[in-house]
C-alpha cells in the first residue's frame, strides 16, 4: 500500500510532463488526489489495526504509526482540497490572462513534487531522510512561492529559500548530534532510525542529546514558523497562489512540527522529564504568539494576517507539546488538525476574494458578503473559527491546551495565553470585519462567485470544522490517543 503513496504523486508528475491540455491536467490532478485519499484511508485502517505499518523495501526506512498517519492524512486531505480548488482558481487565472497553459503545467508539477516530498518526510523513519525530504519541500515550493514572478513574489521566494535552508541546515547539525549521541548505543544499521533511537533513548548520551534538541528545535522551528525564525512565513504565504498558501500553512508547517515532536519524544525520554524541552518550546511558543498578536493588530494585508495567525497557532502547538502531559499533547495534536483545516479554508476563500478584488490590501475591499456570498460567509465564519470561537473546532483544542496549562498550575502562562488569544481576536475583528459589509466598492465589480469547485472545497471544510468542534469520530480519537502515547511513552 505504502508504495502507492509515493508512486501516485510521481506518476502524476510524469503525466503532467506529457500532457498539455488544460482540462486533462485538472483531471489528472484531482484524480491523483482522490487516489491518494483512498490509499490513505486504507493505510489508516491498517495503522489502526496494527498500531504501525513498516515496509521492508529500501532498507526498511518506510514506517508509519499513529503520529505520522495523522499528519499524513492532513497532508492528503488538504492536498485534495487544494487540488479541487486549483481547478477553478487556475481556470480563472487563465481567463484573466495572468498565466498561460505552460505555467499551469509547471504549477502542477511543482505542486505534486511538493506533496511528494511531504509524503516522503512523513513516511520514513530515518531522521536523515526525513531531513532531506523536508529540505526538499522547501526547494519544491520555492518556485510555487515565486509563481507570479513579480518583484514581490521573487523577494518572498528568495527569503523563503535562504532562511529555510539555513534553518534546516541547523536542524541537520542537530540530527548529526543526535546521531553522535547514539554511537555505541545503536547498531550501525539502525543509525538515525528514530524508532530505534526512541527505544534506546535512555542509553543515549544526555549532554549531546540536549544540544541536539536545541539545534533541531531552531532548525525545524524555522520551517514550522516559530518566532523569531518565522520571518519567511508571512512573505511566502502572502505571495504564493492561494491553494499553495493553504498547503504551506495547513501542511508544511505541520510536517516541520512533526519533526520537532519526534525529537521531543526522544529527548524527553532520554532526560526523563519534559522540563528542559518544555521550557524552550513554551518560550518559543509564547514568543510566536506575542509576535503574531503584535503583527495582527495593525495588519493591512489579509493574506499576511492569516500568515501571522499561522505563526500564532504554531506557537500554541509548541506550547502544548512543551507542557508534555497527556491532555496537552492530545490538545496539541488535535489543534494541529483543526488549525490545518481552518487555515486552509481561510486561505482558499481568501483566494476567491483576491481573484474578485485583485488586491490584498484590506482597505481596498468592501462588501464581500454581497459580492461573494458563499466565500464571504465562509471567510467570516472562518475568522471566528480561527480566533477560537465555539462551536468551531479550534475552540475545542484550545480549551484542552488551556486546561492542561492550568492543570499544572502555571497560571501566569495561562493568563498570558488567554490574553494573547484575545488580542489576536481583537486584531482580526478590528482589521478584517469591515471588509464584509457595506456596498461593493465603486469599481463596478459584478456580484457572483467564480470558482465553483473551490466553493465545494471550502464549504466542505467549513462543515468539517463546525462538526469537529462538537464531536470527533471515535477513530480519530483513538488515533490521537495512540499518537499521544507514542510521544509520551508508555
Amino acid at each position, binding site marked *: 500500500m505504502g508504495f502507492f503513496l509515493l508512486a501516485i504523486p510521481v506518476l502524476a508528475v510524469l503525466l503532467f510532463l506529457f500532457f498539455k491540455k488544460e482540462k486533462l491536467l485538472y483531471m489528472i490532478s484531482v484524480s491523483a488526489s482522490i487516489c491518494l485519499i483512498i490509499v490513505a484511508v486504507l493505510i489508516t485502517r491498517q495503522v489502526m489495526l496494527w498500531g504501525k505499518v513498516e515496509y521492508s523495501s529500501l*532498507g526498511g526506512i518506510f514506517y508509519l504509526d499513529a503520529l505520522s498517519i495523522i499528519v499524513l492524512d492532513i497532508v492528503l486531505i488538504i492536498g485534495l482540497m487544494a487540488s479541487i480548488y486549483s481547478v477553478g482558481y487556475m481556470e480563472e487565472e487563465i481567463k484573466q490572462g495572468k498565466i498561460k497553459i505552460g505555467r499551469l503545467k509547471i504549477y502542477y508539477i511543482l505542486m505534486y513534487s511538493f506533496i511528494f516530498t511531504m509524503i516522503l518526510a512523513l513516511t520514513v523513519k*530515518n531522521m*536523515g*531522510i526525513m*531531513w*532531506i525530504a523536508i*529540505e*526538499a519541500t*522547501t*526547494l519544491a515550493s*520555492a*518556485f510555487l512561492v*515565486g509563481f507570479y*514572478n*513579480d*518583484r*514581490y513574489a*521573487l*523577494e*518572498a*521566494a*528568495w*527569503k523563503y*529559500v*535562504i532562511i529555510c*535552508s*539555513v534553518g534546516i*541546515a*541547523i536542524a*541537520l*547539525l542537530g540530527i*548529526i*548530534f543526535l*546521531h*553522535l549521541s547514539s*554511537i555505541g548505543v545503536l547498531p550501525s544499521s539502525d*543509525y*538515525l532510525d528514530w524508532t530505534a533511537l526512541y527505544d534506546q533513548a535512555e542509553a543515549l*548520551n*544526555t*549532554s*549531546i542529546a*540536549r*544540544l541536539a534538541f536545541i539545534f533541531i528545535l531552531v532548525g525545524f522551528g524555522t520551517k514550522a514558523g516559530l518566532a523569531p525564525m518565522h520571518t519567511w512565513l*508571512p*512573505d511566502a504565504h*502572502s*505571495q504564493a497562489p492561494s491553494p499553495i498558501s493553504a498547503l504551506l500553512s495547513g501542511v508544511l508547517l505541520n510536517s516541520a512540527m512533526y519533526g520537532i515532536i519526534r525529537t521531543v519524544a526522544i529527548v524527553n525520554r532520554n532526560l526523563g522529564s519534559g522540563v528542559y524541552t518544555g521550557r524552550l518550546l513554551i518560550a518559543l511558543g509564547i514568543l510566536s504568539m506575542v509576535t503574531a498578536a503584535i*503583527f495582527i493588530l495593525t*495588519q*493591512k494585508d489579509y493574506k*499576511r494576517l492569516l500568515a501571522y495567525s499561522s505563526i500564532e497557532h504554531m506557537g500554541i502547538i509548541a506550547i502544548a507539546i512543551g507542557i508534555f502531559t497527556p491532555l496537552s499533547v492530545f490538545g496539541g495534536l488535535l489543534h494541529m488538525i483543526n488549525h490545518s483545516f481552518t487555515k486552509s479554508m481561510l486561505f482558499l476563500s481568501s483566494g476567491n476574494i483576491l481573484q474578485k478584488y485583485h488586491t490584498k490590501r484590506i482597505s481596498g475591499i468592501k462588501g464581500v458578503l454581497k459580492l461573494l456570498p458563499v466565500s464571504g460567509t465562509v471567510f467570516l465564519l472562518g475568522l471566528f473559527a480561527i480566533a477560537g470561537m465555539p462551536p468551531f473546532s479550534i475552540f475545542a483544542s484550545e480549551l484542552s491546551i488551556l486546561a492542561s496549562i492550568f492543570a499544572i498550575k502555571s497560571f501566569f502562562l495561562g493568563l498570558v495565553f488567554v490574553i494573547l488569544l484575545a488580542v489576536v481576536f481583537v486584531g482580526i475583528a478590528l482589521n478584517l470585519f469591515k471588509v464584509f459589509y457595506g456596498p461593493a466598492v465603486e469599481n463596478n465589480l459584478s456580484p457572483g462567485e467564480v470558482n465553483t469547485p473551490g466553493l465545494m472545497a471550502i464549504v466542505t471544510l467549513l462543515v468539517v470544522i463546525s462538526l469537529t468542534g462538537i464531536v470527533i469520530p471515535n477513530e480519530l480519537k483513538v488515533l490521537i490517543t495512540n499518537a499521544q502515547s507514542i510521544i509520551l511513552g508508555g
Partner: protein
Amino acid sequence: MSNYFDALSVLILFSSFILMANKRIKSYIKTFRIQSLLIALAAGIMGIKGSFEEGRIDILVVCLLIVVLKVIFIPNLLNKTYANIEYKVEKDFILNIPILILMCCALVVFTYFSLSTIDGINAGIINTQVVNSVSVILIGLLFMISRKKAIGQIVGFLVIENGLYITALFSTHGMPFIVDVGIFIDVITAVMILGFMVFRINEKFESIDIDKLNNLRG
C-alpha cells in the same frame, strides 16, 4: 591519525576566517573552493582509513562527490553567474572586516564553551575537531548576515553545508551513505535554484544587492 584531522580541521576553520576577510565576490568564491578542497582531503583520508579498516567505500564516494560538486562544479557555476550579471563594484559587507574577524574569534571561543558541557569532551567522543567544525557553521551564518550580495549569501550557505559535513565526518565518521547522498542532492538543487533566482533578481531589481529586497515588511 587524529593529529592530521586536528590540523585539517584547524585549516578549514582558518579558511573560513579568510573567507570572512575576503572583500570581493571572486575572492571568496576562490576561498570556498579551497575550503572544499580541504574537506575533500579530510574525507579522502577518512575514506581510505575506513576502506582499510572496515571495508567501507562510501566515504570515498562522497569524497569524490565533494571534489566534483563543491570544488569544481559549484564554484564554476557561481563564477559564471557572477560573470553573466552586470555588476558594479560596491562595498559588499555590512560591518568592517576587522570587527567581523574578531566576532568570528569570539564565536570559536563561544562554541568551545558551549560544547564543553558535553560529557567526555576531549575523551575520544568529541574533540577539537568538532568544535572547529561547528564554529565553521556559525561563521558561515555570520558570513551570510554580513554580505549584501546574493552570491555572498549562496557562498555563506555553502560554507554552512561544509561545516555540517565536516561535523558529521569528524564526529561520527560520516552519516549513513544514503543520507549523505541525499544531502548532496539537496544542496546542489538548492544552489541551482538560488543561482537561477539570482538571475531573476538581477532582472527585476537591476542589482543583486539583497538590501533592495525589502518591499515585504510589517
